[in-house]
């Protein structure tokens, strides 16, 4: 019956834009592996770990912004809440890597699902403000609940990260853990984006009403995307306090969320590896500038403005990958 239909079983070649993106991504992975060999000093390895972790958070946010058109101003709350949860748990149960990851992923998914559920019926500007409000509620908790979160001072002096009896407190070990999280997070996010649900998410971004009419459950797709982004950002957030040996309320504040968004834009909205590029550029400039001048916040503001005026499509787009065409949001 259907024999003649099966004559065309062939491997479809990957579209060109994936191939170029994959080449660049593969180059980046190589670069990641080479960095520890080139520079052995602790500071740059710690800094590299920080870039990888924040870059992972940016990449997960990019799934929401680029993949789903969901511009969340509360993503730092997801990332930071995972960090706080891991730090607090480490204080009482010790800092075992798998336990920390599970706690961080769970906390990230919890906050992200709250944001996703609360904003189910919102779009555009209302969505933006609502994510901002939920994020600020998390900040209020972190700032006021002194007994648990240390209030304005944040948390210090929690145990060092470990795996069984293996101690993971050297810069190199932290860097490798961060690189592993970055790679796994990137692979998971990329699979999600290319799976049917990721395609459906893009459909929801472009034509929500039409997708609903086709029978897709728009709300479920959105919440699932939030859950995945929360899990990825949560895994990165769980390790973040151990790299910095500190976590404070600034990591859940909405100015951090805005910084994550600008990193996504610098890297290129809709490009997953662009998140890492954006984090690299932004954090590097911030560190450089703040060592030169007290007016570094001024410079940070100028970076925001210059990025939006000069590079609205980001580095990845400039490297030749097609960015997301933004209509009026």
């Amino acid at each position, binding site marked *: 019956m259907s024999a003649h239909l099966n004559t065309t079983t062939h491997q479809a070649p990957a579209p060109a834009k994936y191939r170029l993106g994959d080449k660049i991504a593969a180059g980046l992975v190589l670069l990641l592996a080479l960095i520890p060999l080139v520079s052995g000093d602790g500071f740059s390895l710690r800094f590299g770990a920080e870039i990888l972790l924040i870059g992972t958070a940016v990449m997960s946010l990019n799934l929401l912004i680029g993949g789903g058109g969901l*511009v969340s101003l509360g993503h730092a709350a997801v990332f930071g809440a995972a960090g706080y949860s891991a730090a607090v748990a480490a204080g009482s149960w010790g800092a075992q890597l798998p336990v920390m990851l599970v706690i961080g992923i769970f906390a990230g998914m919890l906050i992200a699902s709250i944001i996703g559920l609360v904003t189910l019926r919102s779009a555009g500007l209302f969505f933006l403000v609502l994510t901002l409000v939920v994020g600020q509620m998390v900040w209020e908790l972190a700032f006021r609940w002194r007994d648990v979160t240390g209030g304005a001072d944040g948390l210090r002096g929690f145990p060092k990260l470990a795996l069984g009896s293996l101690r993971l407190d050297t810069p190199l070990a932290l860097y490798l853990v961060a690189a592993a999280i970055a790679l796994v997070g990137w692979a998971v996010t990329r699979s999600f984006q290319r799976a049917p649900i990721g395609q459906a998410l893009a459909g929801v971004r472009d034509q929500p009403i039409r997708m609903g009419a086709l029978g897709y459950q728009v709300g479920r797709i959105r919440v699932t995307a939030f859950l995945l982004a929360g899990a990825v950002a949560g895994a990165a957030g769980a390790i973040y306090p151990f790299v910095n040996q500190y976590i404070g309320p600034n990591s859940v504040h909405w100015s951090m969320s805005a910084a994550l968004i600008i990193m996504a834009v610098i890297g290129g909205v809709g490009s997953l590896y662009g998140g890492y590029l954006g984090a690299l550029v932004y954090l590097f400039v911030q560190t450089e500038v703040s060592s030169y001048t007290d007016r570094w916040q*001024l410079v940070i503001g100028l970076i*925001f*403005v210059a*990025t939006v005026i000069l590079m609205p499509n980001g580095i990845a787009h400039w490297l030749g990958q097609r960015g997301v065409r933004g209509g009026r949001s």
Partner: protein
Amino acid sequence: MSYYLVQTLNALSFSVLLMLTGLGLSLVLSLMNFVNLTHGSFFLLGGYVAIHWIGAGAPWWMAFPAAFVIAGAVGLVLDRFPFGRFYPRTHLMQVLLTYGLSVIFADLMRWGFGADTVSLPTPELLRGVVFVAGLPFPIYRLFIIATGGVLALGLWYAIDRTLWGAAIRACVIDRGIVETLGLNTRRIFTVGVVLAAGLGGLGGALGSGMLSAYPGLDEEVLLLALLVVVVGGLGSFGGTVLSALLLGFVTTFSRVWLPEFANFLSLGIMAAVLVMWPSGLVVRKMRQV
């Protein structure tokens, strides 16, 4: 009972500040669909202008118009560059641009006015208290309520009952048709931005006697103003007033009952309102597709 009366007056004065600030933000947001996160900076700038104006010994009643004019002038400059080219861009880009600008302004103001909290040297006439049902209540807050009320009425009249206002409202609904009728919408937009910035500055000048002025106030006010506008519904004068009252009262009374988690509670209540009414309290009927 009288204690609650005083708290109600407190809530009312806070609501009036929120209303003035929110009206300015709402004007730009509904008129040009432009998200202006520098609005909090206008508020703080107005506060600093008023404080330094009175501190310099100039006539006090001139401080408020001065704050309006200076903030409006900043708005005019921003409208020329870089706002002008961002009106047709996406909300995301507008948010990033204006957030970056607000960070720049915050740092410039910290540089220019110092990082300490400064408060308004209240003029003689407005110092002191009146007794409301046996409890003291600052005269200055009554002044805020009265001035803000008059201003809001004047603004409502201008938007709702004059040709100018009609042109602005028409721009909100269909810019193309207004352009076809021979009105320069770009100029109307400029007037809108200047008026909004001036209102922000004026709100800050009035508020400086109640909230003082300090680095970081701009962000707090911005968040509250955004909430007021969004919860009220875009482009609705009544909605903005309503949600300013709601937020003012919720904030004031949660400070009375739960001082620790007052902000958490008021944010939560506003979020709940947004969950129930995803497009704000007052919604204009729009076509869906």
